């Protein structure tokens, strides 16, 4: 049976479910972090969190504000240099799933976290790649978490920071990318996956009560949809209880 919940909670629940059976996830703070913690309590009991700060197998005693929070270090299984983290873990092919986000995404899951406007004369200077560029290339698969907004789901990126499926088709394989690229986009209204042939973003399911039109409204390009767009199953009581009472008691992500 389904309880009512906020869009953020639905995003966390949907992302958590996508981690079923996964052993290693490369994660940041915020929603993805909560999704991983929820997944460990439900569909992925052996899930280990890898943070680009150099932490493997964190056991945080509080919600970390940053991926370098000291609570992620004390009690972790292993803490290594960033050279080892990016070289041995990420590039070494040890990361099964990585979460990414951005200011802009295009229909092939390419991401912009660098700049709005020209790089030389930026309208808005964004943070830049961080580890995203190599994560997008080396993680075995990536899940994107972004709120659905027309200014974010764009026809043309202002800057391609992190490659998704590039121009689509088998362009990643042609460039010998080790990872398979974006498999899922989790938003606050719906979930997208990617067409197995064209690699174009495709509407997979709508959250309870969301209309197809609302979604198309927030996407600049002419949206492809699955032959039958299903309704995303809402969160179970168990998921909501875990989320609200154990993982995010202060309701930071409500």
């Amino acid at each position, binding site marked *: 049976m389904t309880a009512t919940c906020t869009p953020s909670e639905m995003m966390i629940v949907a992302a958590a479910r996508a981690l079923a059976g996964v052993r290693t996830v490369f994660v940041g*703070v*915020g929603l993805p972090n909560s999704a991983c913690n929820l997944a460990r309590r439900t569909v992925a009991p052996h899930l280990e969190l890898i943070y*680009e*700060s*150099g*932490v493997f197998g964190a056991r945080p005693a509080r919600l*970390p*504000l*940053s*991926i*370098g*929070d*000291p609570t992620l*270090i*004390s*009690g972790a299984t292993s*803490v*290594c*240099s*960033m*050279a080892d983290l*990016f*070289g041995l873990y*990420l*590039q070494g092919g040890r990361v099964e799933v990585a979460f990414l986000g951005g200011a802009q995404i295009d229909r092939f899951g*390419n991401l912009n976290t*660098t700049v709005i406007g020209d*790089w*030389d004369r*930026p*309208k*808005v*200077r*964004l*943070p*830049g*790649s*961080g*580890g*995203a*560029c*190599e994560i997008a*290339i*080396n993680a075995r698969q990536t899940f994107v978490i972004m709120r659905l907004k027309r200014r974010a789901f764009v026809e043309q990126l202002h*800057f*391609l*920071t*992190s*490659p998704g499926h*590039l121009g689509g088709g088998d*362009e*990643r394989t042609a*460039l*010998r*990318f*080790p990872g398979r690229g974006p498999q899922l986009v989790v938003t606050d209204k719906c979930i997208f996956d990617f067409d197995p042939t064209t690699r174009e973003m495709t509407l997979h399911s709508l959250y309870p009560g969301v209309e197809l039109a609302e979604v198309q409204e927030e996407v600049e390009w002419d949206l492809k949809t699955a032959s039958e767009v299903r309704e995303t199953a809402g969160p179970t009581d168990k998921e909501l209880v875990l989320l609200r009472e154990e993982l995010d008691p202060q309701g930071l992500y409500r």
Partner: protein
Amino acid sequence: MPDKRMSMHDAIATYVHDGDSVAIEGFTACICFAAAHEIIRQHRRDLVLCRMTPDLVYDQMIAAGCARKLVFSYLGNPGVGSLHCVRRAVEKGIPRPIELEEYSHFGMVGRYLAGAYRLPFFPLRSYRGSDLPTVNPRIRSVDSPYDDDSVAVVPPLHPDVAIVHAQRADSDGNTQLWGLLGVQKEVAFASRHVVIVVEEIVETDVIRSDPNRTVIPSLLVDAVVHEPYGTHPSYVQGYYDRDNTFYLGWDGISRDEEATQRWLEEWVYGVQDRAEYVEKLGPETWERLEPGTAMAQPVNYGQYN
């Protein structure tokens, strides 16, 4: 054994000059704000600031007008949002325009590795399909001599001076670090000069009791500065917590140019040194940031004679 202890004032006066390339590293942890504030107080100009995550430490130095260029991979206030001072410099040229040399995290790690290993380049699997190489001609690629594979490469980075904060060192500069290691070892080996800043100066016997914990050997070190709480609002594992309240509060202050300058007046120009800054913050801050105890289980190296 040489004694390399110096005050922060003298270490900066001696090893940081106008126009130098400076790397104050430390990923979230061990970011030496004490050194940054002293550089601001000594009015250094035209610095090339190198750092994976410029963080508040370079946001403040850039607001103070110390820098002409930034070499980096992530321009954010971790977990909070933008670095507004950096954005003002980049978007509006306030207080002065700043040149950007931009990489990804692994690209910056690779630059330090190439520098530390004295290699002409470091290879990594990144950048293909990204626009980053189009705005940074230093990012290139090399073909494999074994098959038709090819990889991206970055050139060595050799900062004029690296300022590395850690938990403890002896007075010769043998330095031990735990918790997040960041690129502290790599930047030290890659740089022309190294200034070590620590929470505690210890006897060499303490260092020698656990040689695997020594990340930076005295061999590389020019100066050792004893500066307790020298990383606030960053943190030192086991010594004090990250001041997340400050990181959240800086978002508001830094959005406004005047508020930022007032903050610098009060907390940087307005104090003589780190000791005064620590005292000004007051005991309640340090109580709030005091962690509990979680000791590492002992290990035995054994006596062999």
